[in-house]
């Protein structure tokens, strides 16, 4: 079993850190993981992305053409990845910023108002956690507790006071995605 995730957004939206948290959580739960950032010219346009692969077997290629899961934190990322998510995959959209609606009917699409959720808990900077929560509600390949442990271990010391708020944003993102399913 292998899950490939692309997280994409503006620089400063916590794209690379969110990917690293997944990689740490995957590693600490006994999976093989790879994390690879975009560092080429595509970053110069203001959009950064990273690819994370979590697998129960050794991982060959660290990149994928078509990810199982794409998380789009801004509009350029939405436009880039809408067509690339694998059929039956998951497309997580930060609906606070991306007002567009996905045309794909062969993938699960979840809209999560990530900025709004994070802002209510004290800082929009935590919006990346809302999207991770929403993703795990739909594809529980890791538990919320695994992500929380990774946060405990790896949130920079300067942000330690935001640890519980990050937990809360993660949970609220998870709940938002669950409620969307019910509705």
């Amino acid at each position: 079993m292998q899950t490939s995730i692309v997280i994409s957004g503006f620089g400063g939206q916590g794209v690379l850190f969110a990917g690293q948290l997944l990689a740490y959580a995957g590693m600490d739960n006994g999976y093989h993981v790879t994390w690879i950032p975009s560092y080429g010219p595509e970053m110069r346009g203001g959009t950064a992305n990273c690819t994370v692969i979590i697998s129960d077997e050794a991982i060959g290629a660290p990149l994928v053409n078509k990810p199982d899961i794409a998380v789009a934190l801004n509009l350029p990322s939405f436009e880039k990845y809408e067509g690339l998510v694998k059929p039956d995959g998951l497309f997580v959209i930060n609906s606070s910023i991306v007002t567009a609606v996905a045309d794909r009917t062969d993938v699960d699409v979840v809209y999560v108002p990530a900025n709004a959720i994070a802002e209510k808990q004290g800082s929009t900077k935590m919006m990346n956690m809302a999207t991770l929560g929403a993703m795990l509600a739909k594809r529980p390949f890791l538990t919320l507790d695994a992500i929380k442990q990774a946060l405990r271990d790896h949130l920079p010391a300067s942000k330690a006071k935001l640890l519980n708020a990050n937990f809360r944003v993660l949970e609220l993102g998870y709940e938002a995605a669950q409620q969307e399913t019910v509705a």
Partner: protein
Amino acid sequence: MTKELLKGNVAIAEAAVRAGCEAYFGYPITPQTELLEHMSSRMIELGRTFLQAESEVAAINMVYGAAAAGARVMTSSSSPGISLMQEGISYIAGSEVPVVIVDVIRGGPGLGNIQPSQGDYNQVTKSAGHGDFHPIVLAPSTIQEAIDMMGLAFDLADKYRTLVFVVADGSLGQMMEPAELPPMQELRPRPTWSLTGKKDREQNLISSIYLGASLLEEFNRKLQAKLAIIEKNEVRYEAYELEDAEYVVVAFGTAARVAKTAVQTLRRQGIPVGLFRPISLWPFPEQQLTDLADNGRVKGFLVTEMNAGQMLHDVRLAVGRGLPVKFYGRMGGAIPMPEEIETQILNLINPAAQPETTPEGSNGYINR
């Protein structure tokens, strides 16, 4: 020891520190700068030598000096920086001092770009500087292997008093993967041949100048004899799913990781394909490939590289003319995807079966 999530460049640097690297000289260049950055704090913390030189030309000559003085020494750079170092690299080869160089290859030629490439294969294996010599060239394909290779690189450099290259590409430098670092080694003593001050001993001389033709020929003969021993002893490779393979993909470094995924996918469909991964690019595992070609079972080879086909020629020399050796390459910083390699393997097996398509979002590929 437990596994940590480590970035390639940082892992290589820390592995070098733990292998007892006493001095580092370098100049920043993407995509290997994190290596130099890690060295800049760790080496100072440990009271060792770190120096950011004014250029790659200066850095390699500082490396030469430190090696002559007997220090376990290294530098690291990326493609254009290695080109700048080539004069010094040749002097190091001509002086037979042990040096480790890490090349995190990026797209070329020229300034090119900062994305992953294997375009310097010929440069490092065959043309690392003027004159007749080859460095030992090691090519990791995972971060754990890169870590393990740093200790090996320093040991081989010392054992043969030779240059050892560790070549990665931008993606291996930038990616993170769980890996385990080795314990810290003590600094090794300065070798007896090194320039430590001649008080109470005979003079040591380190030089690459031999003015008479017969003197220089004699030196070259000695150097070639040493390289022949290295060729005999230091071939390294990985054989993956080759026991019953009828088709063999040959790839190194990141391209080999991608090829491994393709091989796994096709194996699940019952296709008898395997991967041969040279780990030492020089000495090249020529005999092992010849043996594969002659085993009566293998029907064809696919070489895949992130360049226009450089290792391809070594594979063709080893395989000979009896079997097809096809090539698939991506250039300019592009990494092939497993699906592309799967298509090429299927094409090798049955050339009529698969339509040739240009990879999505690319400017094409090169097929030979």
